[in-house]
């Protein structure tokens, strides 16, 4: 069973349905017991970094997620859910993140292009990873964000080029996966990434 964490940051219908279309058993939940029993955890999120962290704290999910990480259960954070996996964010105000991935999340004012980075951009693969086994270099995925992660080369699995910078698209450390783009909104390519996540979870 995959737990999609409900912490009141945006609608979870599309990600939940995308997973169900791949025959995954999905529960939308904020119940620690359910989350701890899950074979895989999805941390979605739309909104702002401080609100997301505050909601996780209010739902007592920070400790739960730390346990999930320690148990080596695959966790996939999507968009804002990816950003809070890092150590710190600077959206609205400086806020401590979960710290599962190395680095910080900062406003993209150094890009020579429009902000937000909104639309379909191509993946460039930095290190091969089973999550991207069905993805080809140059495949388009859907991004919508104004802040980006600054991370280590080791953890940077794939990026998109935008306005002269590498925008981290997939960042992975052990069992923790961060996806800056929305696989559930990324057409066929997105489905293939979620299918690969399903395979990671069941092996």
């Amino acid at each position, binding site marked *: 069973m995959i737990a999609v964490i409900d912490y009141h940051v945006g*609608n979870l219908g599309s990600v939940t349905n995308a997973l169900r279309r791949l025959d995954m058993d999905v529960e939308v939940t904020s119940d620690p017991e359910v989350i701890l029993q899950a074979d895989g955890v999805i941390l979605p999120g*739309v909104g*702002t970094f401080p609100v997301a962290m505050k909601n996780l704290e209010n739902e007592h999910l920070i400790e739960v997620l730390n346990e999930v990480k320690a148990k080596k259960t695959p966790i996939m954070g999507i968009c804002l859910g990816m950003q809070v996996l890092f150590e710190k964010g600077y959206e609205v105000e400086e806020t401590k993140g979960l710290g599962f991935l190395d680095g910080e999340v900062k406003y993209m004012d150094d890009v020579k292009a429009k902000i937000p980075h*909104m*639309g379909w951009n191509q993946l460039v693969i930095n290190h091969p990873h089973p999550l991207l086994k069905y993805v080809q270099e140059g*495949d*388009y995925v859907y991004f*919508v964000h104004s802040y980006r992660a600054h991370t280590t080369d080791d953890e940077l699995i794939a990026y998109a080029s935008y306005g002269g910078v590498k925008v981290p698209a997939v960042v992975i450390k052990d069992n923790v996966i961060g996806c800056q783009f929305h696989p559930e*909104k990324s057409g066929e390519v997105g489905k293939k990434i979620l299918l690969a996540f399903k395979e990671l979870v069941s092996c």
Partner: protein
Amino acid sequence: MLAKRIIPCLDIKDGKVVKGVNFVGLKDVGDPVELAKEYDRQCADEVVFLDITATYEDRGIIKDVIQRAANELSIPLCVGGGIRSLEDFRMILSVGADKVSVNSAAIKNPQLIKEASDEFGVQCVVVAVDAKMREDHSGWDVYIAGGRENTGIDLLEWVKKCEALGAGEILLTSMDADGTREGFDIEMLKTVVEAVHIPVIASGGCGGKEDIADVFEKTNCDAALAASLFHYQEATVDEVKEICAKRHIPVRRNR
């Protein structure tokens, strides 16, 4: 490289798809969810639902349509029409839309743009702007209420203000071009694209496949929106993308 987006727009009334020519003469072409899924299969990059009569009538039905569409689409969904308050934003986003487009209400209460972007993020705040050339050709005025009312506000001043308040995107409809099917309003688009740093969606006037490639070549807009071209099956999104690709415009293709 960021792909240029092609966005079919579905005008919806009472839960059914319609397409207005200059906002009158409506013709029913079916269920919005089924049509949106077809566009998803054709490699549309996003779908816009515009509840065109929402300013005047009850909007309960659209909520169900949005929810069904959001659950079944694998591409982003933007919903607009009759958005008045932060509460409307919340309702539409809560049933699964990715973006909300606001038009008349933003003119009446510009702070709504700021409040919505502060609460939900700039990326889901699309300001839809309907504009028309002034009679003396000195520029364009912004219209509201589905093009019925001239606000007297200058287009460029308005889009700059929208950006400053936190709009994530401008959906710009040329009322001069809308319904003519003679191509997008290149002059208006060029002027707006140069005035703001947020993405601009071109709307109004698309009459053929080449018009979309033309607007991407002649202006630096980020996306092109069309309705009748796709609704009446004169072209599929795929076919338009094939033309764009031949003309070296970056577009996302099915593989």
